[in-house]
C-alpha cells in the first residue's frame, strides 16, 4: 500500500522547483490538451522527448516512480489490446490505405501497418504527458498549487477546496487504515482469501465509519473557518504565492510556441492525423 503513496512533493534544488506553480500548471494543462487532440506522431514524439529531458533535469529518481510507471504501462497495453480486439481495421478506416502484414481487409481480424501506426499514436497519447504529470506533482508544493490556481483565475473558494483536499488526503488515508485494521481485529475479513460477499460486507464496515467521521470533519473545519472569517472578503492573499520571474516568462513563451506548432500542424496535415501512408 505504501508504494502507491510515494508520489508527492519533496523539495529538490532544480530550476523546475523554482518555477512558479502557475507556470507549471499552465504548461501541463496546455500541453495535455493539445496532445489530447492531435494525432501527429512527430509532434507527440517531440513533446515526449522534451518531457523526458525535463524529467531528467528534475532529479526525480526512477525508483521513486517505478511502481506508478508499471501500472501506467500495464493499463496502456490493456487499452491497446482492447482497441485492437474491438476495431482491428480502424487504422485502415482512418488512413484510407491498406498495407497488410497479415490477412486481408475483408476479414475481421487482420493486421495492417495502418493499425499498428494508429495504436502507436494511441500509446504515445497515453504516455506523453506522464513525465510532465510526475514533474508537476513532485516539484510543486501543494500549498503553492492552490495559490497558483487562484492566480490563473480560478475563484479562491474553489482553490481553497483543492487545498483542503490535498491537505486532508493523508489524514483520510490514515483514518482508512486505522479503521480497516480495527475492523479486521474484530474479525471482518477483507483480504483475497475471503469470499466476495464477505469481502463486500467487510468493506462496508470500513466505509461507514470513514464516511461518518469525514462528515463530522466537514462540520468541524467549516466552523473553524467561519470563526476565522473565511469568505468575508472578495479576494485573499496566499502565503505561498510566488511572483513570476524571468524564467517563468521564458517557460511560458516556450509553451506558447509548442502549442502554436501543434495548431500549425493541424493546418499542414489538413486535420488531426499525420498520414505517412499517402
Amino acid at each position, binding site marked *: 500500500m505504501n508504494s502507491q503513496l510515494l508520489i508527492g512533493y519533496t523539495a529538490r534544488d532544480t530550476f523546475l522547483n523554482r518555477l512558479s506553480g502557475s507556470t507549471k500548471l499552465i504548461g501541463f494543462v496546455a500541453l495535455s490538451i493539445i496532445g489530447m487532440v492531435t494525432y501527429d506522431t512527430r509532434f507527440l514524439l517531440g513533446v515526449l522527448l522534451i518531457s523526458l529531458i525535463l524529467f531528467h533535469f528534475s532529479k526525480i529518481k526512477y525508483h521513486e516512480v517505478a511502481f506508478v510507471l508499471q501500472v501506467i504501462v500495464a493499463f496502456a497495453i490493456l487499452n491497446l489490446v482492447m482497441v485492437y480486439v474491438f476495431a482491428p481495421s480502424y487504422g485502415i478506416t482512418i488512413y484510407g490505405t491498406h498495407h497488410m502484414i497479415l490477412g486481408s481487409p475483408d476479414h475481421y481480424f487482420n493486421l495492417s501497418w495502418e493499425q499498428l501506426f494508429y495504436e502507436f499514436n494511441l500509446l504515445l497519447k497515453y504516455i506523453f504527458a506522464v513525465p510532465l504529470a510526475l514533474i508537476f506533482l513532485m516539484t510543486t508544493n501543494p500549498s503553492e498549487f492552490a495559490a497558483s490556481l487562484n492566480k490563473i483565475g480560478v475563484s479562491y473558494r474553489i482553490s481553497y477546496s483543492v487545498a*483542503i*483536499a490535498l491537505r486532508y488526503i493523508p489524514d483520510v488515508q490514515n483514518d482508512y487504515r486505522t479503521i480497516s485494521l480495527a475492523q479486521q481485529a474484530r474479525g471482518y475479513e477483507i483480504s483475497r482469501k475471503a469470499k466476495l460477499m464477505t469481502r463486500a460486507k467487510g468493506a462496508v464496515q470500513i466505509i*461507514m465509519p470513514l464516511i461518518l467521521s469525514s462528515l463530522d470533519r466537514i462540520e468541524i473545519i467549516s466552523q473553524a473557518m467561519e470563526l476565522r472569517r473565511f469568505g468575508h472578503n472578495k479576494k485573499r492573499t496566499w502565503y505561498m504565492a510566488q511572483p513570476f520571474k524571468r524564467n517563468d516568462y521564458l517557460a511560458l513563451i516556450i509553451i506558447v510556441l509548442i502549442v502554436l506548432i501543434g495548431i500549425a500542424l493541424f493546418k499542414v496535415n489538413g486535420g488531426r492525423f499525420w498520414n505517412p501512408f499517402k
Partner: protein
Amino acid sequence: MNNKNQSSNSIRTVVATGIGAAVIFVLMKFVAIPTGIPNTQFNVAEGFLALLAALYGPVAGGLAVFIGHSLNDFVTYGSPWWTWVITDGLVGVALGLIKNRLNVTGGTVKTMKLVWFNLYQIVVNFVAWVLIAPTGDVLVYHEPAAKVYLQGVTSWIVNSVSVAIIGTILIVLYSRTRAQHGSLKKEK
C-alpha cells in the same frame, strides 16, 4: 440573519468539496473492484458521491468528484482522462440537484422517495456514461466507438449499482441519525 446563513453555507460548501474530494480520492484508490474491462471499476466512491451531493448540493458534489477523480487519474494513469473526469463532475451536479427534493437532513427518507431517487440516478448515469462520456472519447480522443461504448455501458451498470446499493444505504443510515421534521410537539 439570512445573509449570515448564506455565508456559513458557502463555507460549508467549500469544505465539503475539499473533504469530499479527499474521501473520493481515497475510495477510488483503495476500494475499487476491477470489472475485467480496462479502466472501469466498481467504485464505492460513486455511492459516497450520492450522499455528499444529497447533503451539500450540486456545486459541492460536482466539484468534489471532479477534483477527486482528476487527482486519482493523476497518480494512477499519469494524466487525467478529461472526458470522463468532466462527465463524473456532471453526474455530481445532477445528483446534487435533487438535494431539496430528497431532503436527507429532514429525517428518515421514505421508501417512495428512495425508489424515485434510484430511477433518477439510473437515468443520470445512463446519460452520463452511455451518451456523454463515450461520445466525448470518440470526438476528442478519436478512440474506436465499439471500445469506448463498451466501457461506457459497463461504467453505467457498475456506477448505477454502486449508487443503488451503497448510496441508498448511506442515505438511509444518515437520514436516520437526523431528527424527524416535525417530530417535536408542543406540550399542552
